[in-house]
């Protein structure tokens, strides 16, 4: 089969039977044990914690009898496997259980809080990628020039600064001293898009800055390497194609592969970032309740959050793998041959 035919879009029947689709199917199947593994591990970890939800809920004044009664009510007295099995069964029906703290269904809690976190992370990602691409392209256009040196300094700073420190500094400068952004709080998108963006800017910046730094370095290095080493670039230059066109249409597009893979890898770590940043800005997202849920042994809530993030991570990695395969035919055929 000619490579050219494979590269043309829209050949659905060929795509479905193609090595790419088989790759996707394999990866999807492989994702299931990963998800199971993650949820199982979380359950194990939460159960190893001393104390239990009933004691946490009832607080200091509770008698052992009261604690025991609540334990029965919350099914905490049943064995580990029974509880995990129940939860897993519920999961397959779309029921994530109810929070041990207040009895609210986990799906409701997630429904309220996930959009906030999702918007925050989306904002952070978009900002970091846009700025990274912009700066990397400028830097790569004139290696060791002004933009390049600037990019190196800025990205080194971003890699080395701790997000929580950055958040504190941002609040102090932009919310207290120059009152451009709010220090705390979240305004829903439906209420006011402008206020919504404003309320998320500082937290998104705190998360985005380290990401932006890594992406910039990666992109810049990759583009420069391509510009200097790849034969096709030499050919293009010889043909008289303008430098900017080479840079953006060819080098950048190829470099984006590496970037996409990296983004997929990042997502898991972002739970931690979100758990630190959201409380600092009093944003009502999932990060804000993650820590208190763990401390309160609110296993259903913790599991709910873990499942959502794990699914997103796995899907994202799957997507990037597929994208990689779709855009780079060599991968598809290498895999098929392997």
């Amino acid at each position: 089969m000619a490579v050219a035919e494979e590269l043309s879009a829209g050949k659905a029947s060929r795509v479905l039977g193609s090595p790419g689709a088989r790759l996707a199917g394999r990866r999807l199947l492989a994702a299931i044990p990963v998800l199971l593994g993650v949820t199982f591990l979380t359950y194990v970890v939460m159960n190893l914690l001393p104390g239990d939800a009933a004691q946490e809920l009832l607080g200091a004044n509770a008698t052992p009898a009261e604690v025991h009664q609540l334990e029965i009510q919350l099914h905490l007295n049943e064995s580990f496997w029974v509880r995990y099995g129940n939860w897993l069964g519920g999961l397959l029906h779309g029921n994530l259980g109810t929070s041990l703290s207040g009895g609210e269904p986990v799906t409701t809690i997630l429904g309220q809080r996930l959009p906030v976190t999702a918007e925050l992370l989306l904002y952070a990602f978009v900002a970091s990628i846009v700025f990274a691409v912009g700066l990397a392209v400028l830097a790569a256009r004139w290696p060791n020039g002004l933009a390049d040196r600037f990019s190196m300094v800025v990205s080194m700073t971003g890699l080395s600064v701790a997000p929580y420190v950055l958040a504190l500094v941002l609040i102090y400068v932009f919310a207290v001293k120059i009152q451009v952004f709010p220090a705390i709080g979240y305004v829903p998108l439906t209420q006011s898009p402008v206020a919504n963006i404003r309320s998320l800017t500082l937290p998104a910046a705190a998360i985005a800055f380290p990401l932006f730094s890594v992406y910039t370095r990666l992109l810049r290095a990759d583009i420069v390497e391509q510009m200097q080493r790849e034969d096709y670039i030499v050919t293009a230059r010889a043909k008289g194609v303008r430098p900017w066109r080479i840079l953006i249409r060819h080098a950048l597009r190829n470099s984006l592969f590496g970037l996409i893979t990296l983004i997929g890898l990042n997502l898991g770590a972002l739970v931690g970032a979100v758990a630190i940043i959201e409380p600092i800005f009093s944003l009502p997202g999932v990060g804000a309740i993650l820590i208190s849920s763990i401390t309160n042994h609110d296993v259903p809530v913790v599991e709910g959050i873990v499942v959502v993030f794990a699914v997103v991570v796995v899907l994202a990695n799957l997507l990037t793998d597929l994208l990689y395969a779709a855009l780079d035919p060599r991968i598809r055929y290498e895999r098929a041959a392997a």
Partner: protein
Amino acid sequence: MSAPLPDILLPPEVTAPKPLRARRTRGKTLKIAIPGGLLILIAAACFVWPLVYPVPKPVGGSILDAGLPPFSPGHLFGTDPVGNDIFSRILYGGRVSFEVGFAVTAIGLVIGGLLGMVAGYWGGGVDAAVMRVLDVLIAFPALVLALAIAEGLGPSELHVIWALSVFSIPAFGRVARAAALTLRGQTFMLAARLAGTRGGRMLARHILPNIMPQLLTFSLLGVGVAIILEGALSFLGLGIPLPEPSWGSMIAQGQGTLSTQPELVLIPSAFLFVTVVALNLLGDALRERWAIT
């Protein structure tokens, strides 16, 4: 906790030929010497200074000296709200940062490196199994585990090291595996196999020395990440227990009085920043150097 796994930053092929360039040896040496020297300076200060030159103890300060500003007599950086000398807390806190950073990275390097190397070289079922395990660890929210360990076992330096090692292992695993995979296809490997080299010897004599430079430079970046993560754990109150100092917990404590005593946050932040920058610069410089050899 958003510092990602920078394995992609490394050159895609270990033995790909690089264009020859005029060797700017002196520039390169400086690039290694300056951050390296800075790191040694900071580490020496943290570990050696208190032994040689007396500083006030980092805990148990007298409350009569609470809240002194920097450059007060006897307290270079001032004191915190219960009277502990900040300079001494920076030094002792730095010890914790270095210890945790290097321990976590060492564990990741050894265990993760081994796992990844074996998986990459052998391929097949072993590779698939190892990759699944690493996938689970990567998808697993780091924070939950770290919190659980801190809660369950109680906060301490050792437990922080364990908790963070769970994440350095898969990171090194992926890097080692990617590097080993690339090596597998090289001609010299084929030659070695034809010559009769088997398994362990292959790993030890051929693969390991060739992926070492990548792993080492990755390590230096990893130390920086580990230090920031330790700071994050301490910031959440789950790392080094109070009143023992750690740069992260100092930042967390200082956060409560940012408006009144900003130096409590700024000074440990500055040290944290400079140390991680030095580590990153050193890692970059070494990578540049070894890439040419």
